[in-house]
């Protein structure tokens, strides 16, 4: 069960008055701080900290996300970004030039089912998020694999000062890009390492709320590598 220093809390549970937590997950009801989602109350620091274990991804301008093209409009693509709102990527933005639907065809560039790495330019409560692919490393994803996790578990895949990410990269030799919307792009030297990586990420998602996870994941990867016969050298 949960130890004394980290406690799992449920919606409606009262939290300490000096708790650190973001607005929709910790709210004020009648002068009391109340959790609104299942989360972890970390009592180890100077001030108690509330970490949500579940949340719904709501885009913010500036977020770099991995999107899945879900449908094609006349002048734009509709992109699923693992959030309640479908994002829009305009043809003009993607092509970097004016687009004429009479002479050109959008399916030549992006088809339904393609993954893209894009940045959220604008989003407010009245309009769907607008994406751009102008920027370093943004655009269509042509190789590698996408792994999807709960967006609330993203910080755990990165770890404190990128500890988890660095460990994953050095153990497997894969390149990893973690998008805030819970999609992870991995680019590995071979298929075996790729499947090890997927298993490791799924393990992090499953056990995100536990202590000493980085070491356990490292051990797990090393075991899997041994089974697959991937060199110790």
């Amino acid at each position, binding site marked *: 069960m949960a130890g004394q220093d980290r406690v799992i809390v449920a919606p409606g549970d009262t939290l300490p008055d000096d708790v650190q937590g973001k607005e929709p997950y910790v709210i004020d009801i009648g002068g009391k701080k109340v959790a609104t989602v*299942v989360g972890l109350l970390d009592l180890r620091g100077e001030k108690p900290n509330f970490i949500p*274990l579940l949340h*719904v991804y*709501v885009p913010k301008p500036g977020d770099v996300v991995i999107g899945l093209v879900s449908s094609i409009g006349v002048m734009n693509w509709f992109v699923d970004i693992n959030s*309640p*709102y479908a994002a829009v990527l305009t043809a003009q933005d993607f092509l970097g030039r004016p687009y004429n639907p009479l002479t050109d065809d959008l399916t030549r560039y992006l088809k339904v089912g393609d993954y893209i790495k894009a940045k959220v330019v604008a989003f407010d409560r009245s309009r769907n998020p607008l994406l751009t692919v102008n920027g370093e490393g943004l655009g269509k994803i042509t190789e590698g694999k996408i792994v999807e996790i709960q967006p609330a578990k993203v910080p755990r895949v990165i770890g404190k000062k990128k500890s988890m990410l660095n460990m994953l990269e050095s153990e497997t030799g894969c390149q990893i890009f973690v998008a805030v919307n819970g999609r992870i792009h991995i680019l590995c030297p071979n298929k075996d390492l790729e499947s090890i990586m997927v298993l490791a990420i799924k393990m992090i998602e*499953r056990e995100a709320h536990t202590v000493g996870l980085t070491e356990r994941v490292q051990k797990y990867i090393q075991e899997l590598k041994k089974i697959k016969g991937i060199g110790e050298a």
Partner: protein
Amino acid sequence: MGGKAQVRLIDEFGRRHDGRLPEEMRPVRMQVGVLDNSDGSAIVEYGKTKVIAAVYGPREPVQRFMVLPDRALLRVRYHMAPFSTWERKSPAPSRREVELSKVIREAFEDIVLVKLFPRTTIDVFIEVLQADGGTRTAAVTAASLALADAGIPMKALVAGVAVGKIDGVLVLDVDEIEDGSGEADLPVAAAPDIGKITLFQLNGVLTEEELSKAMDMALSAIRQLVELEKKALKEKYAFSREVRSE
């Protein structure tokens, strides 16, 4: 079954037909995360009553005209499976099911923080797998757990329970037999953490004193149910922790 055999609802020792005391609930079981394809799900059992709930969303509404510009639209579908009752129930939504869908939705409208997700819908599907009285209250409990399991921010957990009156005695958590032959039925749902009653219906007649006592009984049972809900939610996370720390 289904025959109208006369059962003594309360015996000379004050016990009910199934051996419970008036203020005793049926055995309760709750489990979250029972369906993989939904965003959140839960199964709740009050004795022989079994209800499963699944939550999808917040998501883009299926029909555009439904959207609300300032908040998420909460949609609740309460449905009884054809095999849930003694006699086959037509799967078409009945008047009763439409009404219960509405009252259950209203039990959550002030609990779920719908303003966080404008122009979306949150769909709650509730399926009664086995009906033995108290399905609407079990449905509220299951829906509350499924919403929490989906990670949708809510002010507090909600649970429901019904109080009935049989042979002049107030009894907690009425089952099918008691409901059918009782004198009154009072389903209540509440969020004790924030002190709100979110569902309140009364079928039959209760005096003012009886109503007040019935409410006390219901609210104290609901407090216990909410504790069980929290336990069920926490168990989902405690399990993997124990496994790994062997």
